């Protein structure tokens, strides 16, 4: 499904601030894989996501998604087949526009059947209403309200709905529950699992929660210094405990965990 082949990326090359974020990075995902990704700060997790989503073009190597070479495809074109969510709930929605208008924008990703001058129809509204009711947050009765009035959790749930409204080939989740309170985070995680399973979406999720990393999905990456140092799935993964993972972390990176947040919960 997704192939990154020998991808390298250096920021500020040729200056004292040069930072090699990805070096000769290769990874292969099968159709329907749900990969959780852990690693300390600066390990290259977000850089990998940015490379896949097209925030920048990589220095060398190639990126393929579903057989299509997307290495030099601009970001806004990639977003037709890649859904993405960030840690910051404010990033995924337009605050001064209504829920309905935000959803209509998400629909644009289907890329066909819409004239740029078409309006939101009643049939669209009916569909938005049905999809919103699946979130179980009562948003279907507030479709005319600006998104800026929603809570962080509600906005993140809405963003999830928007990112998957037109089923993407790949869904990138960058710690998308980290800014939410535990209860809301659980709810958004449940929604994520449900939507990803129902639509059979290939998905990658960065998390700092070790337990979550092992519980969700079918595969786990441990990243360090721009490389995947540990890649586990199947039976080996199902036997893994959080303590095993911590041990792997020490062996894989040659350093102890520098982030207390990962140890919690």
């Amino acid at each position, binding site marked *: 499904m997704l192939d990154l082949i020998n991808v390298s990326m250096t920021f500020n090359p040729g200056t004292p601030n040069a930072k090699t974020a990805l070096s000769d990075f290769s990874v292969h995902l099968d159709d329907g894989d749900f990969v959780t990704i852990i690693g300390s700060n600066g390990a290259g997790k977000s850089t990998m996501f940015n490379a896949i989503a097209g925030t920048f073009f990589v220095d060398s190597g190639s990126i393929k998604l579903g057989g299509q070479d997307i290495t030099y495809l601009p970001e*806004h074109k990639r977003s037709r087949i890649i859904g993405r969510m960030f840690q910051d709930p404010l*990033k*995924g*929605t337009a*605050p*001064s526009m209504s829920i309905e208008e935000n959803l209509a924008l998400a629909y*644009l*990703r289907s890329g066909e059947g819409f004239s740029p*001058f078409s309006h939101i129809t009643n049939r669209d509204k009916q569909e938005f209403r049905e999809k919103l009711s699946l979130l179980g947050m009562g948003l279907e009765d507030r479709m005319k309200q600006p998104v800026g009035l929603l809570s962080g959790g509600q906005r993140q749930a809405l963003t999830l709905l928007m990112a998957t409204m037109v089923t993407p080939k790949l869904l990138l989740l960058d710690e998308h529950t980290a800014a939410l309170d535990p209860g809301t985070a659980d709810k958004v995680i449940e929604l994520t699992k449900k939507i990803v399973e129902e639509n059979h979406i290939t998905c990658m999720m960065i998390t700092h929660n070790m337990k979550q990393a092992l519980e969700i999905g079918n595969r786990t990456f441990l990243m360090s210094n721009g490389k995947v140092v540990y890649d586990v799935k199947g039976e080996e993964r199902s036997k893994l405990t959080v303590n095993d993972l911590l041990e792997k972390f020490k062996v894989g990176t040659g350093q102890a965990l520098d982030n207390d947040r990962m140890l919690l919960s």
Partner: protein
Amino acid sequence: MLYILKTALELGFLYAMVPIALFISYRVLDIADLTTDGCFVLGAAVSVMMAKAGHPILGIPLAMLAGACAGFITAFLHTKLKVPSILSGIITNTGLYTINLMVMGWSSNQSLLKQGTVFSMLKNALKDQKTDFMVKLSDWYAVILSSVVVIIVSLLILAFLGTRLGLSIRATGDNLDMVRASSINPAFTITVGLCIANAMTALSGAMVGQYQKTVDINSGTGIVVIGLACLIIGETIIGRRPFFKGIIAAVVGSIVYRIIYAVVLYTKVLPVEFLKLITAIVVALAIAFPAIRKWFAFQGKKIRHSQGEKAASSTNESGKGDK
């Protein structure tokens, strides 16, 4: 008095397309588009020169097209060549000075003498009706024509902003990250938005040019600040939410501004030359209002805090004295 009102309405509607343009660029796209001044003169120049050549009606759409081209250049500089948006506008504006002179046949002003304008055409058409009502109405020809144009344009823009392309443009000013993630090319939406905004500015210039039967190379100076003042005055009266009120606010603000202008002009409470300074101060204060309010709130907090401290220390001291 009626005459003052009539003049205010005429100028208010004629200039209303400028705050509407600024509503699109400044409020919707969140870009301060300084192309406006030069673009206004460009519209006036094209329309007056076309009227001079005997094509007053054709001059209006051509002026809008010229304005859209100016907007396109600003958008190109900003989105493709990564020039900061304010600087892009200033660069285009500076270049337009020469273009405008070129359009006006390398002369700094041009006047229409006996050539017809869209206004004189309507006036004569109304007079030809020969009924009393129509002849009376012919006095108000400029108000009628300009208000009809403004209303049609406003309705078209409102309808457009509800379309998928319109929504994309609104989202571009609201959340750029989200726009990229929705497969919209922000360079495209910014370009479309600025083209439409500048076409509106040029339309205003085109109407004003034919109304005054003259165009001067400097007639656009300060138009952008006046337009912003109109928009802000209107928003204070009408409100900003839901967003479509912005267009009504632009029109209402423009008329109110011209009424104030006319009153100052006729009552002479102030020399008219002061108006631009006052306009500038009004705009600066209105845009600075949130910061000013915050500063006062903070000073209030500081004073209350120090008074609280004093009260606390004095009670402490009196407590010690008792012992």
